[in-house]
């Protein structure tokens, strides 16, 4: 047998060793690449990639089948961790609120094509500087009536005490209403405070009167109703949730009305923080809303998705305006229900907030008679309603300071009209351009 020269053997041995090393290196490299890909997919799903990396990775997912498959696979494992969460039952009314979402929103074409809205379209101009809320605030020492001033502080402190008892982490949010009931029944009655403050109310344009009326009439009547229920123990999770939202809104509205009421929290409210329309949809969908002796069930129809206000103080004012409209319409609905709509682009440059409901002709005429002119004698029981309308007018003046109230009314920046048996109340508000950047607000941990 012919034997190979030792140099060839050495060469073969060497090359086989090289092959092994190269193969091992390739395997290592492939493993490294696979691990890297896997790591990147995990980072993506965990939200750990930077904005730039995320976008570039999503572009890769869109074009690369194997990356897409890998992400789906890891996502499968990742989401299975959800099953480790302690089982909890959602409040049954979450189901009904969720299913309201499947209802077809109202067809608003008749309203949007009406003369009033046409007039708004023709006359609407953006204010040179967008209003960020807070201009309606006064000092509490401007309140001449000492008992009114005391009542204001008492109410604010009382509500600060209520808020933690109804938060999403409170025992009441998990069905133990004991502490809430005790607090609501043992402490003072907001209903009594309301009686003391509101007699007599007149639709005054005085800023101090407006701040008081906004604190009294926007969300407080509904809140008072639910707190009375809490005091009797006759409540469930739905009512606790409603108290939470109303209480949080009421506190913000009060701070935005009286700048010395709680300066520390007001300073937080004045920071730039975007509020989206989803915050309004969350709290209004399926909400039972009351205004003194009447109530109505709210539903949300056409709601655009996007930003609606830039600071908490602006959101408080927007909220207050919506409460004013809801108070006026809920008490007059002939079906017991009313709808809220937030419409963008129907009038370029602004967002329309609309409430509407089936309302009888008589009731509509009653609404039409409302005026902020205190010289007009109002029918019995309408003074509060006139104040609500007057509050809206005041807010519109702040939002669009380059127009007089009369101009705003004539140009339908706000108004009331009847279309096809429905009464519509609305106000326009300057839109926020989507390009805006700033912090994002959530309803979540309210700044009390």
């Amino acid at each position: 047998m012919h034997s190979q020269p030792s140099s060839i053997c050495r060469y073969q041995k060497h090359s086989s060793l090289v092959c092994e090393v190269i193969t091992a290196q390739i395997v290592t490299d492939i493993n490294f690449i696979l691990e890297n890909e896997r790591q990147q997919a995990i980072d993506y799903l965990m939200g750990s990639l930077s904005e730039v990396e995320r976008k570039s990775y999503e572009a890769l997912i869109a074009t690369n089948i194997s990356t897409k498959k890998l992400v789906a696979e890891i996502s499968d494992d990742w989401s299975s961790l959800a099953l480790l969460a302690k089982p909890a039952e959602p409040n049954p009314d979450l189901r009904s609120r969720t299913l309201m979402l499947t209802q077809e929103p109202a067809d608003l074409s008749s309203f949007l094509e009406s003369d009033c809205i046409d007039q708004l379209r023709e006359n609407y101009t953006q204010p040179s500087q967008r209003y960020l809320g807070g201009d309606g605030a006064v000092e509490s020492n401007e309140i001449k009536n000492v008992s009114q001033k005391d009542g204001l502080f008492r109410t604010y402190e009382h509500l600060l005490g209520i808020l933690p008892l109804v938060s999403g982490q409170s025992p009441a949010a998990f069905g133990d209403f004991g502490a809430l009931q005790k607090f609501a029944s043992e402490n003072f009655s907001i209903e009594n405070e309301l009686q003391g403050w509101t007699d007599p109310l007149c639709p005054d344009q005085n800023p101090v009167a407006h701040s008081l009326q906004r604190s009294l009439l926007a969300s407080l009547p509904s809140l008072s109703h639910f707190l009375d229920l809490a005091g009797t123990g006759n409540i469930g999770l739905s009512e606790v949730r409603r108290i939470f939202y109303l209480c949080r809104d009421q506190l913000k509205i009060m701070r935005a009305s009286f700048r010395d009421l709680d300066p520390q929290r007001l300073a937080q409210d004045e920071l730039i923080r975007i509020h989206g329309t989803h915050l309004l949809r969350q709290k209004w969908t399926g909400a039972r809303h009351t205004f003194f002796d009447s109530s109505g069930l709210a539903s949300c129809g056409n709601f655009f998705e996007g930003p609606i206000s830039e600071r908490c103080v602006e959101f408080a004012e927007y909220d207050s305006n919506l409460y004013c409209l809801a108070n006026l319409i809920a008490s007059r609905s002939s079906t017991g229900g009313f709808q809220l709509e937030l419409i963008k682009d129907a009038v370029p440059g602004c967002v329309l907030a609309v409430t509407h409901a089936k309302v009888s002709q008589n009731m509509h005429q009653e609404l039409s008679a409302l005026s902020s002119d205190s010289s007009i004698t109002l029918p019995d029981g309408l003074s509060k309603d006139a104040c609500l309308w007057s509050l809206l007018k005041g807010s519109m003046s702040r939002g669009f300071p380059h127009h007089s109230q009369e101009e705003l009314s004539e140009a339908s920046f706000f108004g009331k009209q009847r279309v096809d048996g429905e009464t519509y109340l609305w106000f326009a508000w300057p839109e926020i351009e989507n390009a805006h950047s700033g912090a994002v607000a959530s309803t979540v941990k309210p700044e009390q």
Partner: protein
Amino acid sequence: MSPIESIHWERIRDRAPDSLADLYDGFAGVMFSLALEVLGDRWEAEEVVQDIFAYVWKKPESYSPLKGKFSSWLLVITRNRCIDRLRSRRRKVVHGEPIEALSNRQDYSSEDGAEHASRADEKTSIRKAFDQLPNDQREVLELSYFKGLNHQEISDHLSLSLGTVKSRIRLGMDKLRRALTGLRP
């Protein structure tokens, strides 16, 4: 995608009567449990769940079977939105961040669309698999999944290097995958 899941999504997409109610009855419980676990706040958890159903109803096309299984996708967006909220709580006010920046993350997923019974089985298996992970891997997965901490935050919290955090997460995920393989079609 399993047939049950496929039907859920197709019925939503086709606007079939009661399709949202059926989807809610099948998935709201687990979505809510997850949201409550992450957020610890009932009202916030309800808001997240309601928002997701609204999103699915309005934009059913945001899901595609190519992204994997429908139920996983629902759980991924539930978790993502909860984490966005957690981070928003921590962040409070930081200028310069675009609105909904985090929520714009696409949601890819896949999973078993099982209804309650098979989910209960899967849950038991996942618990078992999770409990069998080494403590250090379990800890980083919990901090990441339920507390929403990113790698750097976990690294700071546990005084570990970034690389160690990443590899513990990856190893933990790999072990879970192996343990759960038998459960999946």
